[in-house]
């Protein structure tokens, strides 16, 4: 049992250190059909699949939330009012993308 616990902890440690050792990246593009696609990743090429995504109004209200899919992409309907995208891969690994800066 102890061995299993140690094994799990060691995996957790590896995953955690891996996630901290590189820079998060997130780029969003207007698909031209009132939807936006954000692509996430890390500077060492590792996957952002499962990373939490928030679409927030300027006053920080959450308009939409979800997760990066298996291709590290997240597509959502473009909000009518000002918004920003938050790619949240944990403390120190969050990226804000203002809606105004998202173009085709």
């Amino acid at each position, binding site marked *: 049992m102890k061995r299993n616990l140690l094994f799990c902890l060691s995996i957790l440690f590896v995953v955690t250190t891996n996630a901290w050792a590189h820079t998060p990246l997130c*780029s969003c593009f207007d698909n031209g059909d009132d939807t936006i696609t954000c*692509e996430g*990743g890390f500077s*060492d090429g*590792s*996957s952002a699949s499962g990373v939490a995504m928030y679409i927030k109004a300027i006053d920080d209200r959450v308009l939409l939330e979800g997760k990066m899919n298996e291709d*590290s992409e997240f597509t959502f309907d473009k909000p009518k009012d000002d918004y920003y995208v938050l790619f949240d891969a944990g403390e120190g690994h969050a990226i804000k993308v203002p809606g105004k800066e998202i173009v*085709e």
Partner: protein
Amino acid sequence: MNKKVAAFLAGAAVLSSAAVASAHFQMIYTPEMAMNKGGKIPLKLVFTHPFGAGHTMDMGTPEQFFVVRTRGENAPKKTDLKEKLKPITWTSLTNSGQAYEMEYQARGGDHAFCLIPEPYWEAADEFYIKQNTKVIVNVGGEPGAWSEPVGLPTEIVPLAKPYDRWTGNVFQGQVLFNGKPVPGAEVEIEFMNHKPELDKNAFAKEGEVEAPQDSFVLQTIFADENGVFTYGIPRAGWWGFAALDLDPDYTYKGKKCSRDAVTWIQAKDMK
């Protein structure tokens, strides 16, 4: 010696040295190989002598032109771009030649643009030249499969990102023929000395540097036993690498055809 004969001989010597000193390079050019954001980018396909912005050859209809996009650990996505190419006339300092252009919508990751051209008949050498060319553009800093072969018959696979080299770094590549390393491959290197002016489809008239002697225009190095070559980058800008004649028995229309592999890097100064 008769003055006229002397003048003729001098002229002939200049011509012949110029012909020897510069080499053919297939370009796939866009101003920025490492883009911060995606968007539409121009691509120009020009077959020329880049150091001196010299004779530009007429390109035939490309056999293949495609892009392989890779982002992180995602599966590669190959897109055919051949039908989007439009013929243009590219002007060098000495002539004009047929080239091609298109606009490409780039999103994140690596975009490996690959050209398999129609062989070019080089009358001066009496053989064909076929330079399979690969240029990798990155958007946003997220790497893809830049270090993997795309699978071209002749290919230079970078061992360092071709878009992240500082001036003074080295660039290493591995020369492959049908996916296997080519020991001792001869690799020619030229600096793109005249900036392409995309709105004019021409090279800038002024070069950035002057070669102190012909040897510096076209540099030749050789790959090691694993087909790996190494080059120290002395200046920011575009540098072309052409591995020559990787399939010595290859013929096209009954004539010798040099099957080459070309790639380019864009180096930046630290400032």
